[in-house]
């Protein structure tokens, strides 16, 4: 029993170190605070896939009135998140199905207009910036369509290369 406890303590310590590292990358002023708007980014770079609602929920627990988040609060909340393995990654095939769901004619691509409509009007809408950024890379310029299989594969490859989180 003692061994397990020691093991768990070690695990927690390691998780805390990882969280602190990720936090500090965004800590512009090196004063253990981070702008609340970057919390989503930090959580995601630790290997989690929360949606916006979930991010906001977390943020609400730890955000200070001035919009900043302190490391100690973030550490507390985030350690639990990681230990509980919340916000698990979305598997490749699920994403594929999601794209297919938007591809009404089953033609293996989605038009720019459709994509924009779905992603900026439905779900947790993209901002215009987010939409433009995605289009800049994802669209095939000649046909103005998104070939989602290739796109998804391309991004997934990059993911697996750099996934730092290993519990």
């Amino acid at each position, binding site marked *: 029993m003692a061994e397990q406890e020691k093991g768990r303590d070690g695990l927690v310590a390691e998780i805390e170190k990882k969280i602190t590292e990720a936090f500090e*990358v965004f800590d512009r002023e090196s004063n253990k605070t981070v702008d609340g708007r970057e919390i989503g980014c930090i959580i995601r770079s630790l290997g989690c896939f929360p949606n916006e609602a979930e991010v906001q929920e977390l943020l609400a627990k730890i955000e200070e009135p001035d919009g900043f988040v302190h490391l100690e609060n973030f550490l507390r909340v985030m350690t639990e998140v990681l230990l509980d393995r919340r916000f698990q990654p979305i598997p490749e095939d699920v994403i594929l199905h999601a794209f297919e769901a938007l591809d009404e004619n089953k033609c293996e691509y989605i038009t720019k207009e459709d994509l924009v409509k779905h992603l900026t009007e439905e779900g947790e809408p993209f901002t215009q910036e987010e939409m433009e950024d995605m289009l800049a890379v994802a669209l095939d310029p000649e046909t103005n369509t998104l070939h989602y299989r290739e796109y998804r594969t391309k991004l997934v490859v*990059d993911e697996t290369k750099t996934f730092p989180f290993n519990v």
Partner: protein
Amino acid sequence: MGSGSSVNVNYKYSLQKSENAFKAAVLIQQWYRRHVARLEMRRRCTWRIFQSIEYSCEQDQIKVCYLMDQFTPSSSKERDFISRMFISGESYKEAELEKYCDYESIEVPDSYTGPHLSFPLLPDHATALLEAFQQKQQLHARYVLNLLHETRKHLKQLPNISHVSTCYSEEVTVCGDLHGQLDDLFLIFYKNGLPSPSKSYVFNGDFVDRGKQSLEILVILFTFLLIYPKEVHLNRGNHEDHMVNLRYGFTKEVMQKYKVHGKKILRMFQNVFCWLPLATLIDQKVLIIHGGISDTTDLEMLEKIQRDKFISVLRLKKRKESSRKPQIQAINGENESGTDAAANEAAPRLSLQPQSAQAPNTANRLEFSRWLRQTVQEQIDTCRRLMDISESEPEELTYSSMVSLKDVDEPCWTRQEEWKQVLDILWSDPMPQEGCRENKVRGGGCYFGPDVTEKFLDKYNLQFLIRSHECKQEGYEFCHHRKVLTIFSASNYYEIGSNRGAYVKLGPDLIPHFVQYQANKTAHMLTMTQRQGFLVAPYSPSFNFGPLLSPSSASLCSVSSRISRVEESAFRALREKLFAHTSALITAFRSYDGDNTGKITLSNWATAVESVLRLGLPWRMLRPQLVRSTEDGMLEYKSWLDDLAMEQRSQEHIQSSLLEVIYRNRSNLETIFRIIDRDHSGLISFEEFQQTWKLFSSHMNIELTDDGINDLVRSIDFNKDGNIDFNEFLEAFRLVKQRPS
């Protein structure tokens, strides 16, 4: 636990068509945002890597200079060698300089097809130069020297602080570091227009080093300076300093481009640099300096000092200085008050420890080297503290060997105080915390906080500061509640795609307007007269992925592949650094591996690496790129280090430990070498090479026997005439670096 998988199952099975699209959108957005966050993290980590390596390099430079001061020659031969390094032509008197760097006797052959300059310069000369450089032509040495003479004459008349008024020229454009990147200068001129009576410019230092076209940039800037003296203003940067140039590439560049007259040209540049003004003031409201300020920055002092005294702000001190004694005693823990300045005058050789270090035997040397390694940082601190305090020192010439002896009438400040003023404005960086402390990362200047800025601006009734000196991802950045603006004009500074460059325009309202850009490889192929569009990214206010190439190519390569090019470069540099510290790393790893299993946890790996490299990097975030394979979360460190070595090693017959040592100290070696190679020939004698190594072995943990040195030398292909072409030697290591792993 286990709730994760059931969520996915729900998603899979409950997709009804009407809900399909909505749920699908959520998923895609969720997944995409995660992807973007990962990219952002990678981008920031890459940036951190570059920056930390850059600054630790600068710190090295200071250490080298310091080390050379501390070196105790163990024989008269060594003593001569060292003193030869210090007696240099640095403090040329004016007349001597003119004679030595005379250009009139230099003939321009008929075969020369480059631009011809005649003085006084006219706008046509500037255009001719721009076109010539665009076509990769070289300006003849005679014209370079002539230009430098005229530039010097002009700069000498200027005050330390230039004054600019927006009422005459409407708008002023301020540019930051260019670092030899000519493409960026062309880009600025293309977007903003050439300097002219209606277009004022301030260039805020660091025109040279690192990039390969420092010379061309200086020629262009000096030309415009002479044609439009009222509209073009140059500030000195910390790289307008020949000691820094030795290390960071300008010296090399000049010698490569001007094999016959390079030395003269360098001497002239060295002199011209110290005549560059130190600051520019716009409308008495905006102060532009290269680095920053400190809590002791005094504009009145800055206005009055003789700026040409500070040929180099990184100093090599004269050997005979009595001032050394207090500092050494402090290091040795002795009583600081027991200084006897006069006592050392007699002994031309400086003893760090009275009895040792004169006998050339191994034991003392090992002790010496161990002691030195342990206390280098403390020594620098002590040295710095003592310089700043100037306690027991009389007002005589003490520290800077570069200070000329001609001044008899001194104002009430000591030379140390003056030196500190200049050092601070050229080397300081802003920090978010309040206060003012030494800039230990760079090794020079201060970190100054928002309170220091506010006090300073209040004292002199200024609105804000503009400075450069630090690379910024967007080319510019505000801090200290928008009272300090950093402007950086060298795009792709660390690597293609690492950052944008920017310049700032100020009108009479003194509200800054920014223009950003990023030089593209193909951009330089377009000539100024053709005025075709440069392929630069339109400024996109959106989430910054990094470099955007021209619209058509953006979709071809994914964003992440663009980021990974920069990233790959950063990690390559990092792996090199890790390799260079192999021995220290093994020791550190072993301390976590008490049972000698050959394995350590990844957590301990991270802690150990930081304790050795001290770069302040997020090692756990970087681990996946550095450590490829693990077993049960444990790393076999020996084989990991072997893998690193395999990437770096080239020649089998050079001992791996030697190689590691060379690697770690490559830049330092090169710097010392260039100091030794006073005629900049690129060749040093075998003996000089040996001396270099001996100088160095006091800094390294590895004891190099004479045989060891001989072996090393033999493994380099050197001419039978007893000379070593150091460029070839260094080139060999560059080739190793570039070899695909």
